[in-house]
């Protein structure tokens, strides 16, 4: 069964802005799905419509088979939302925020308190349960929004840039938590500007730009489309000039590291064989940019280029 099924979804705002121009999307139950796109691409509008915070202009949306037009309450009951902007009453206590949210989903108070202890504990907020939300740091507020979204144990969790402005340690802890949540059976849809996050967490990716889906495939298939990757090699002994490596584009950086562009048709083994023959020892290796980021930029820039060419004609 599809956790989410979107057909020809259109949203035109009253000011005439076409935020969504007929998108189709299907997310399988149990998937960890990345919805990527530049700012203003339509991601948040799509999420707003799925969660019935925004009225659609046309199209169909179903959550686990429940249409938002015909079975809205049943559809809503399946969704947990972590919105992009912090949207909690700053004067309410941490505990009241999650327990009240459970109440809105019809969960009895004693059960809500049990779940609050579980989720606030897992997100390391239980000790702060009696404090008003305004006392929490930005990262804690983000975690509180995740606990709030999970309190009714939704089948579909939608996270709209959940780690924006969160330091790397907390971000990685949140990734671990989300992985465990997904492994426990919750379907997750994630939007993020940290493409490393999407690449490491998600199994499926859709890229949306200017209100249209321009890529939608398994993460592995998307990454295979990369024609070239650039690696940075730290050399054990510095070299005076750029080595000539047959078939590989190289660049000697100011810091002495070597940048090597590798076509998808070549192997790293070929590169290391060449380096060994030239007596160059490599102490470490890393990607210059995140692979998904390269692809994302390529796709969006190509589209901008073709749009500019189209408008010029």
């Amino acid at each position, binding site marked *: 069964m599809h956790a989410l099924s979107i057909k020809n979804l259109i949203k035109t705002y009253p000011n005439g802005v076409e935020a969504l121009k007929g998108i189709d999307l299907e997310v399988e139950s149990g998937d960890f799905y990345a919805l990527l796109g530049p700012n203003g691409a339509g991601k948040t509008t799509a999420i707003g419509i799925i969660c019935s915070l925004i009225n659609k202009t046309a199209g169909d949306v179903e959550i686990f088979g429940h249409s938002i037009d015909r079975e809205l309450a049943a559809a809503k009951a399946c969704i947990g939302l972590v919105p992009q902007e912090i949207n909690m*009453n700053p004067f309410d206590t941490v505990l009241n925020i999650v327990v009240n949210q459970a109440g809105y989903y*019809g969960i009895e108070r004693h059960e809500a308190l049990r779940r609050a202890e579980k989720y606030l504990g897992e997100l390391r907020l239980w000790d702060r349960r009696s404090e008003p939300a305004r006392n929490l740091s930005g990262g804690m507020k983000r975690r509180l929004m995740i606990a709030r979204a999970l309190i009714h144990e939704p089948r579909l969790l939608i996270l709209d840039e959940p780690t924006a402005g969160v330091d790397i340690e907390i971000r990685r802890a949140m990734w671990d938590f989300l992985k465990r949540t997904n492994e426990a059976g919750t379907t997750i849809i994630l939007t993020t500007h940290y493409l490393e996050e999407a690449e490491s967490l998600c199994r499926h990716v859709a890229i949306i730009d200017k209100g249209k889906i321009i890529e939608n495939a398994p993460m592995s298939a998307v990454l295979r489309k990369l024609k070239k990757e650039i690696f940075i090699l730290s050399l054990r002994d510095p070299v005076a000039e750029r080595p000539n490596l047959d078939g590989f584009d190289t660049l000697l950086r100011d810091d002495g590291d070597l940048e090597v562009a590798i076509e998808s048709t070549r192997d790293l083994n070929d590169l290391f064989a060449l380096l060994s023959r030239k007596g160059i020892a490599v102490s470490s290796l890393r990607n210059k940019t995140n692979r998904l980021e390269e692809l994302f930029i390529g796709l969006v820039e190509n589209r901008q280029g073709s749009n500019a060419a189209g408008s010029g004609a």
Partner: protein
Amino acid sequence: MNLHLNWIGFTTLVRKEYIRVIRIWVQTIVPPAITMTLYFIIFGNLIGSRIGSMDGFDYMQYIAPGLIMMAVITNSYANVVSSFFGAKFGRHLEEMLISPMSNVTIIVGHVAGGVVRGLLVGGLVTVIALVFTHLHVEHPLITFSIVLLSSVVFSLAGFINAVFAKKFDDISIVPTFILTPLTYLGGVFYSISLLPEFWQNVSLANPILYMVNAFRFGILGTSDISIAYAYAIIGLFVAGLFTVSLVLMNRGVGIRS
């Protein structure tokens, strides 16, 4: 509609509103208590002693029901308009909008919160009134039902105001320019029989007149208007304002783009 889910949602909203009223008691409970004490001292005690009686009652006794009703009306309205607009402005209204709770439950839950505050303040003002005068409730059922229905009317009005409000100024315009004048002209301090006939007829267009007089009838047993007519007017307002609130919520006016 899932009745169990909506019942839990309703009780959660009422509990949340009650906690809010108590948490900010300095803003919600204390000001009306001080204001009403001043009304009783100035209008009831100092000026009232020179006025004498009205409709056969000591002036302090005569104005007490009106002042209690005034406190209930203004606090019911203020609670819903500030709570719902605050949630809209801070975007935590989304917590409710994404949930499977029905729009009816969201409206009724907020209205119940307004009624809770209205009755809390009304009860406190009644206690203050008893310090200054003696009140014997002639018709307890009428007294309670009128105060409850009036509180519902103004909670619903506050809800509609909050739906349309875009900034904090918008939630003070109606109380300042409409609610307060209508309350003062609604027979709190005088019987409309004192007015010339033309102004008596104009006063009959003021819905607060019916609430104040019906409530006064419940406590003192005297009224300028028919009690059945008052119930009909208040009932019409409850039905009308609830329908408007529900239509606005279903259409997402002011809350969904």
